[in-house]
């Protein structure tokens, strides 16, 4: 066993020294390799962090939301539906929600107006999300003018700006009192946008949903789990699309790596010939090539992952934001929670190191099987 270690150590020694001797050639390979890992890792870290963020936020979301449908579109919910639902066994709490969208011509943005379940602002006042505050340069105490459903203006005072704790959701949010909401949108009292409810026993959510559907056939219950699933899929899809796009980069990299590995200079060829002539077996040279590849892969992989980590979590992904967040004028700005799992590392490994290794197997072998004889006759 000792000899095995010593053999590896000796060969690694020689491998590293020959890598350093051919700095120029290896440097370009290292740079490209690192770049590739960096790109892929950035995408993966970013989407994963976003996904985590979203799921954390959604944890506070209601178990089930019931919406009324008419001709395939979302309709307002009459108050009597509330009573009907609270009669279902297993439902512990029912609440009608008031929320809607408001298009602001001034900033060409869509705001979400919501009457919170508790601690709603007093009539005349609103709380706005930080995205809105930024785009309108509004501060607490300022006034915002809205256009009511009947065309008349309605002026409300900003009482506070929502904290940037979870900008992902609250960036374009306006909290408003029920009275003002109904005045703004002309919604009659007793009508709600939708209903949220909690079920006593978590396992019973699905059954409760079924009961709701039966009871009120023109409604659709939406479960939190379904929302989470949809979000996950979208994030997966988006990051997947980018990976697919980057696959052309991976392909180019494979060709590049293969070319580098095959392009042995006369000097390198001679060196291997000498080694063979001195008594190195083909398997020894193959081992040397293996360690060469391992050293290059390891360095590039670590460097790429490190840079990607810094890129995503310290510089907030300066390069990719537009694509992944979706085009919108209101831009949430938030710090992503650094998160990296061994699973991501394994995926990266398969997307980068495996193609590199495969590309270099045959060239390495060709190098290792150089005839020592050729050295004698040079």
């Amino acid at each position, binding site marked *: 066993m*000792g*000899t*095995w*270690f*010593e*053999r590896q*150590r*000796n*060969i690694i*020694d*020689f491998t590293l*020294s*020959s890598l350093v*001797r051919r700095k120029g050639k290896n440097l370009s390979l290292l740079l490209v390799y690192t770049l590739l890992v960096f790109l892929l890792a950035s995408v993966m870290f970013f989407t994963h962090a976003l996904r985590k963020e979203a799921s954390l936020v959604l944890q506070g979301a209601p178990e089930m939301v019931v919406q009324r449908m008419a001709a395939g579109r979302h309709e307002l919910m009459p108050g009597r539906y509330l009573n009907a639902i609270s009669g279902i066994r297993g439902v512990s709490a029912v609440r009608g929600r008031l929320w809607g969208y408001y298009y602001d011509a001034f900033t060409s943005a869509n705001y979400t107006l919501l009457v919170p379940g508790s601690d709603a602002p007093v009539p005349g006042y609103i709380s706005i999300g930080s995205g809105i505050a930024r785009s309108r340069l509004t501060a607490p105490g300022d006034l915002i003018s809205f256009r009511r459903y009947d065309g008349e203006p309605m002026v409300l005072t900003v009482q506070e700006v929502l904290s940037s704790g979870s900008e992902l959701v609250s960036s374009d949010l306006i909290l408003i009192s029920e009275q003002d909401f109904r005045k703004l949108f002309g919604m009659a009292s007793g009508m709600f946008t939708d209903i949220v409810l909690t079920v006593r026993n978590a396992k019973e959510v699905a059954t409760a949903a079924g009961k709701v559907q039966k009871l009120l056939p023109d409604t659709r219950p939406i479960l939190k789990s379904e929302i989470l699933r949809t979000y996950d899929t979208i994030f997966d899809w988006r990051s997947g699309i980018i990976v697919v796009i980057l696959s052309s980069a991976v392909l180019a990299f494979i060709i590049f790596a293969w070319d580098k590995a095959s392009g042995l200079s006369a*000097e390198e060829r*001679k*060196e291997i010939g*000498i*080694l*063979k*002539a*001195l*008594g*190195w*077996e*083909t*398997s*020894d040279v193959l081992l040397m090539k293996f360690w060469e590849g391992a050293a290059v892969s390891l360095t590039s992989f670590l460097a790429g992952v490190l840079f990607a980590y810094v890129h995503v979590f310290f510089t907030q992904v300066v390069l990719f934001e537009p694509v992944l967040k979706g085009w919108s004028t209101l831009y949430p700005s938030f710090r992503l929670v650094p998160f990296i799992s061994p699973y991501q590392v394994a995926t990266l490994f398969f997307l980068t190191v495996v193609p590199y290794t495969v590309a270099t197997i045959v060239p390495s072998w060709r190098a290792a099987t150089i*005839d*020592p*004889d050729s*050295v*004698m*006759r*040079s």
Partner: protein
Amino acid sequence: MIELRDIRKIFNAGKPHALTAVDGVSLIVNDRAVTVLQGPSGSGKTTLLSVVGCMSRPTEGRILLGGREITSLPERFLTEVRRTTFGFIFQQFNLVKGISALENVMLPAYPLGEHHASLKKRARALLDLFGILPRESSKAEWLSGGEAQRTAICRALINDPQIIIADEPTAHLDTKLSHEFMDIVGRLKSEQKTVIIASHDPLVYGSTVVDRVIMMRDGRIEAAGQ
């Protein structure tokens, strides 16, 4: 003892530009003697040397080393035989550029998994024996002709082989260094080693150290000498 039976080596066999480098050579090389293969370039000396030294396999014929047939051994075993039995000194020395003289000497032993420190000690002892220890850390390309030659000799001796093979060792040396080389050969002989040299340098084949001169021409032996 090395025995060659009817060795033939043909390059690019079956193709129009096939070349028969060695054409039916039968030979016995004795132990603890200095044998010289003499002949003009193209006579097949170098090819024969590489076949004798287990560096290439003959197209036809058989080789026996100490009575054991090694002709069709797989590369793995051939290399092992070569590593332990033979030490090579090439015409161009063929030191690996970019690494030190000391590392060059240690190179053949790397795959054997010897403890690095003890290997280093052995290598330094050899360099000392040949008087080039002060140059141990110099890169190979900075060594003078004589120093490079001696480094190549040390490298050939690192695995303590029984047989030393040298191909045109004096081709790039002046008279003084050539004489020095033959002195070293004499030393090796007195240490019970077998030496086989291919050369067309009169200084080599005319030396008193040499026991036997074999003349070659066109891939065949002309005179077996004694």
